[in-house]
């Protein structure tokens, strides 16, 4: 269910490291809007600024200049404490290395953002996700006992659990073989469609990028 509402607005975004001749311009004036319910793929070579841009959208990093507005919230106005709550409520992250808490079971990992919030889980919704991602028989397992694909599916379930406004996926298939990559990408697209989520995904894989509604190509910190 796409709408014409902009869920993410990035304006004049810059991220510089260092100064003088050794300065690295990770992002150099990005302007971008992403509509609600849209699947956006960000592609580009290594060091083009994809991950930096994604981190800025998710409130994981702070820009040198410019603004990021997500679901009407200007991230530059948030304090550290508020940014953390923003991430847990508004953003679902899917990392390349899964970032599962190794001391929690699959079920506890999925519920982790809700537990952080003290919010009651929507059990029917969660059961639906778990079923869809093929995790019902893995709920009591710890991450170390799972394959890469299963870990990534757990991460997707966790990202969806808190019903976030946006899903940010940083090369979610980077550690998976081609079969698993297709499966995970398909699942991502299906779940976002099914649960009306906005998905921004970084990928090097042109086949996966083709699944997106919009493809953003980056080079040297700029959108090309």
């Amino acid at each position, binding site marked *: 269910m796409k709408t014409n509402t902009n869920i993410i607005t990035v304006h004049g975004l810059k991220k510089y*490291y*260092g100064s003088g001749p*050794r*300065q*690295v311009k*990770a992002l150099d004036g990005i302007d971008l809007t992403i509509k609600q319910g849209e699947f956006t793929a960000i592609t580009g070579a290594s060091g083009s600024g994809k*991950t*930096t841009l994604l*981190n800025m959208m*998710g409130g*994981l*990093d*702070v820009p040198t200049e410019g603004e990021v507005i997500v679901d009407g*919230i200007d991230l530059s106005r*948030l304090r*550290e*404490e*508020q940014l*953390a*709550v*923003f*991430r*847990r*409520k508004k*953003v679902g*992250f899917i*990392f390349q290395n899964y*970032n599962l*808490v*190794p*001391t*929690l079971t699959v079920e*506890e990992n999925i519920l*982790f*953002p809700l*537990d*952080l*919030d*003290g919010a009651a889980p929507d059990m029917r919704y969660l059961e639906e996700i778990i079923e869809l991602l093929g995790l019902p028989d893995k709920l009591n397992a710890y991450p170390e006992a799972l394959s890469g694909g299963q870990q990534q599916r757990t991460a997707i379930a*966790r990202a969806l659990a808190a019903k976030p406004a946006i899903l940010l996926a940083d090369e979610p298939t980077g*550690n998976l073989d081609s079969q698993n990559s297709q499966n995970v990408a398909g699942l991502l697209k299906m779940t976002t469609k099914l649960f009306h989520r906005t998905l921004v995904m970084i990928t090097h894989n042109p086949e996966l990028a083709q699944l997106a509604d919009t493809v953003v190509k980056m080079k040297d910190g700029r959108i090309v």
Partner: protein
Amino acid sequence: MLQNNNLKICRKLVRRELQFHKGQCLLLVTAVTLVCMLYTFSFAMGSHVYDGFLYSYRLMYGSGSHIICYDLSTEQAALLESHNAVKDTVLLSPIGTLSDEMLGNRNVKLAEFSEKWARETDSVPLYGQAPAEEDEIALDEITLNSLLIPHEIGAEVFLTWVPEGGGEERAGVFRLCGWWKNNTGETDSCAWITKEAAEELGGGTPEHKTLGLTLYLPGDPERQAKDLFSDTGIQNITYTTNLAGNRARMAYAGGKAMEFYRLNLIVVLCGILMLYTILRLSDRRNIQFYAGVKALGMTPRQIRVLAVYRAAALCLPGLLPGWILGFSLCALLAPYVVVGLGANPALFFFRLWPFGLGALLTWLTVLTACLLPIRSVAKYTPAEAMRFTGGNTKIKTMRSMAGRSKTKNRGLRRTTIRRMAFTELSRHKGQSLLAALSLLLSLIILCCVWTKGVSYDEEKYLEGAALCDYRLSDPSAAADTQRYNPKSRSIAPEIPETLSGHPAVENIGIVCTMEVPMYAGAQERAPIIETFEETDERGVIRKEYMADAPDWIAGYEKMRESGEYIGIVTGVDKLALEKAVTQNIFIEGTFSEEDFDTGKYVIASGAASLLKTTPPAGTKVMICGREFEIMACVLFESSLASGADSRQAQFNVTYYVPIGVFEELFPEHGIRNVLIDIDRSRQDEFEAFLADTLRGTEIHITSVRDHQLNFRNALFRICMIPLFVGGVMLVIGTLNFTNVLMMGILVRKRDFAVYESLGMTKRQLGKLLLWEGLSCFGIMTGLLVPGVAAAVWLWGKWQLAHMNTWCVTWRFSLLPLWISLPVLLIIALAVPLYFMKFVTKESVTERLRSAE
């Protein structure tokens, strides 16, 4: 909307962490136990030292009361008793003060037995019982010995006393019904009689009650006493306040206790360092964990609470064993620090607060250590923290990487195992430096304390502190305050004879004294008067230093005006003579044993200064009608005789004469002291023989063992705190060193897999790690040996310049360093080999995959 901090999840995460990382948690709990032990120990020991000082002041004061008021009427006593600041009172109703000259300066009150007073002043008869019949009396041992009363129930006791408030001396005969041992430093005591006897003997004398007051608030009894008298309108009251409540003494005791409390500053630092060192073992995992949960939306507050819960979870299991160990250690060491108590000070002065405070500080220490890794993550944004994936535990950011673009092209160089080992060492510079510094500091402390400890020379100390190995004293001269009774025959002449027959005895001598009235002519007394009337360099007339000793002043004035004074004729032989001429400093004349043995000469000894306080050498003096010539004048450095002399003899001149001459002058004399030197290798054998010989007598023994014990206790007290600090720091330094070696292997699981995949054999890998361990040890040794040696040498020079300790023989020793180096070498070789096995358990492919 953006506000929420659910904390339940923190508990779950901590619980799981404990379950998942049992090994590390066990190590942390052990460290917490150690920290809690140190806190409990130092607080408990400090409190025991403080209480020990106050207790000794209380013993010196002779009563547990905060204030003692004298010469009160019944009404005044009742007024004070009813004051709301007074918690409890003890009342003594003396009828007089014992007046026998042999009691010297002691103040013994003849009074109706008061059990409450007796308990408060430790004067409850322990042998026999309290008086029950009208003619019964109970006395303390010093009084019995001074008055030569046998320690036998029913023994006849003849006493004279002056009624309270003055009047004619009275006398009475009693039967001894009981006695008690008292503190030899005490000058006040009681002679207990029954109420009926007191009424009969004291009839007609005005009331002179003595009231001991225990206050609700023990602080500042001096001020409280003034308030009490002002509130009750009682004026011109004689009172004393307990020494244990004296501000200056309390401050002194507090200062002594502070030496132990200060140890806690080191414990805080060492504890944090130790726990942090263990936490650093999982630094990489911690950073990844905190970065991960931060990225998922855990707020900084939730992360802090997580650390608080983690600290509590690690603390709780460590507290009880920490308390037990700390208290046990205190119970083990306290008898060497708080000496002369009889009971174990840890039990005698048991208090709960050191445990509570120890637990609180332990928790704060653990919390600080747990917050440190969080602080290092908090500095970075989640994106920066998550970028950390390398083997080095330092978070690398784009910011820091931005400045490292320059590399030097050195051309192609072949890689050798040794070069790889050295390159690896440079990757852990920070932690290696921390390990090196903590080892260096701990070994400097330990070697300095060790050098100090071995430099204190027991032989030198004993030579200076103990007149001889054993000194036997007549019971009437056992205490410093006790006047020697020359009628006493407790040391029978057979005793020194028997003792001299023992093969361990190297030398023995006896000391006999007699006070005799003497006369100094104008010429003879002139130099003495000149000395005491002269103004010294501080502008004080010398005799004014004795203003607080009225008996001395009276004796001096008598000598100045009339030439009459008291001479203490001291008969000495063999060891006693040797001590008299070697322990004292000659001011005038020289000693000739041959001349001295002729019996025509005496050695005069005066006051303790390098001034003339005796008639000059060459002067003829008459002793009991016999003329002697003063052969030499010596400085009164250390007294051969124990106990005190009469009040009239406070101002005196001592004349040493051969024992044969003394016997001729005073055929019915007693022996005041026997001095004995032995072969110390046969000390135990001699002591058993001595105990056998003296069985059944009240003869007092001052043993070299007491001095040895004093010396060793003092040495222990001096060295204990720095030894503790150095020991704890050494443990931390060794842990850090182990950690450096361990980290260097554990974080390179993937590197080793890569090396192996490129063809490196396990043997070559082992060689590489051994080289790394050896290189690390080599660098440490290169730093530690010159660093510690130089520091100890410089410290020793400084100590020699600033320490004026007569019993020190400088001995430079680095023993703790020489013991530590082989231990470090073993660790340097064993740790890499052990952990290599651990990280190469899986196949190369498994390791490469798991590292990803």
